[in-house]
């Protein structure tokens, strides 16, 4: 157990090093100029001032030197300062991550719960109408772009029905201290729904396959022969054998969830990590962008790690195999 965790820690370290080098090189090759981004459209800056900036930031040094000095301060916990927001990158990531986490967490739980239930229902009624509906729904959703789904929901529920606000995380023009919890939920519902609806398909189809395998297994035949009812069979054997793969799949789904939240946040102008990353990328806020990329890759890695460990720790057959 300790050994396998150590191996994974080494793996995440190399992953982060590799990722930071890759991001750094890509940015270096891109036409984005941090100095320009910082000054913005301010034409009053003289060439001497710009030169001073370049010197101050070390942009005139070689890329390797730049990388090493950046990585060095990163190791000391200094992610740098965001050019757009003029505050430490880590602070921004922290506050945005919490907003995103609520969104992703809700979508994660909802899509997991609904997806698992749909998968079980489809498997139990395999070949019947309800199974075909669930299958059709899942296949359709899996091939639906998330931003498109977000726009549809926006048009229907925000524009036509006016049930939900069009965007943002809190009402516009209201003081932070006066925002009620219900307002937050109100703003958060549509993006969370968008993310959940699409996340359902994956886990539903997987659970359906797994459950069909289980229902065809000999231990289910035996359970039936022992007079267990359909509900007892599900409770005693179906749930037990299918929930673990479903949960680990859901953890491994962190990556897609993050990618999805980026698009959903963009559509709903929801100020989470994803939309911040898009803004940072578009406006050339390099420290913020690299910081978010590193943190989000850590997040995705954590999801996969949990899925991995969960399988080995919870499944009794894997005891000693860790």
């Amino acid at each position, binding site marked *: 157990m300790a050994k396998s965790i150590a191996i994974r820690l080494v793996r995440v370290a190399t992953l982060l090093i590799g990722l930071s080098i890759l991001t750094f090189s890509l940015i270096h090759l891109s036409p984005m100029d941090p100095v320009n981004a910082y000054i913005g459209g301010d034409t009053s800056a003289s060439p001497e001032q710009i030169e001073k900036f370049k010197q101050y930031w070390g942009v005139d040094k070689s890329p390797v030197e730049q990388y090493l000095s950046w990585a060095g301060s990163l190791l000391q916990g200094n992610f740098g300062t965001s050019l757009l927001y003029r505050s430490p990158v880590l602070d921004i990531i922290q506050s945005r991550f919490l907003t995103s986490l609520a969104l992703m967490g809700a979508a994660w739980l909802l899509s997991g719960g609904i997806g698992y239930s749909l998968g079980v229902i489809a498997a139990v009624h395999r070949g019947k109408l309800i199974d075909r509906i669930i299958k059709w729904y899942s296949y359709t959703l899996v091939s639906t772009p998330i931003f498109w789904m977000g726009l549809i929901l926006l048009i229907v529920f925000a524009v036509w029905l006016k049930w939900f606000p069009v965007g943002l995380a809190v009402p516009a023009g209201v003081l932070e201290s006066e925002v009620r919890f219900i307002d937050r939920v109100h703003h958060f519902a549509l993006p969370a729904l968008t993310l959940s609806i699409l996340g359902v398909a994956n886990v539903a189809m997987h659970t359906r396959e797994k459950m069909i395998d289980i229902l065809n*297994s*000999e231990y289910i035949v035996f359970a039936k*022969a022992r007079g267990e009812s359909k509900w007892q069979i599900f409770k*005693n054997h179906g749930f037990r054998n299918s929930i673990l793969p479903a949960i680990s799949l859901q953890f491994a789904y962190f990556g897609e969830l993050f990618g999805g939240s980026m698009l959903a946040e963009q559509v709903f102008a929801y100020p989470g990590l994803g939309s911040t990353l898009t803004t940072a990328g578009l406006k050339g806020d390099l420290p913020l962008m690299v910081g978010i990329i590193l943190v989000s890759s850590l997040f995705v890695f954590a999801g996969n790690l949990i899925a991995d460990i969960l399988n080995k720790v919870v499944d*009794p057959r894997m005891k000693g195999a860790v």
Partner: protein
Amino acid sequence: MSDALLQVEHLSIGFSQYFKGTKKRVIHPISDLNVEIREGEIVAVVGSSGSGKSLLAHAVLGILPGNAVCGGNIAYRGEPLTEERKARLRGREISFIPQSVNYLDPLMRVGKQVRIGLGADAPSVQQALFQRYGLKASDGRLFPYELSGGMLRRVLFATSVREGVRLVIADEPTPGIHPEALAEILKQLKQLASEGAGVMLITHDLMSALEIADRVAVIEEGRTVEISEAAAFEGAGRQLRTEFTRRLWRALPDNDFDLELQGKEEVRIAADRRKSGLLLSKGALDF
């Protein structure tokens, strides 16, 4: 006979399946099975692999796959055994000992598996059953993969013993088991019968079945070939009614493989082959 516990008459089982993509056909692995079991009696159902023995058990229990079609009559205690009645009786009056330890849930502790369907006093009954089958109380905390094959067989037996069970269907409980364990299993089946239950022992091991069975039903390619008293299987098998059973009996290792009969067999096969060649040339062979 009216005092029969279980009476299976002209049972046929077919499976509809797709072939060549979209065409549907029905295959009939079982065409005409007849078996009768009385209370306290052990009837061995003997046949080679694929002869339809296990399907018989699954048909009586009502656990055939969804694409199966059954024909014929099955009566239990004088009344037709409908699917609803099967669902009501299985696990309560009719219990099943499956042929493989894969029939246990891999993720459930074996003690809990034995407790399923036992009701309020399940823990104490389970302890008693474990004792009866020589399992330690601590074994109940283990998962199936942690027990040996022999222990798992005993767990399977423990799941089949229930208050009020009148019919026990044991599907191949003996293969791949060393002699002492085999004797143990046979003893346990005998014990179930002596407690008044009817036992259907499905096996391809004729010799060990004869040690405890009262009667033997021989099955070949989905038909009952013969039902005889166990006592008829002795010597050269002159009391056996059909040629097939006699050859089966005399071909056993204990009966010297009877080479003389095997010679006759070869002649017959050669004749069959000529006949089928004729059919093929006429193009009369259609499916």
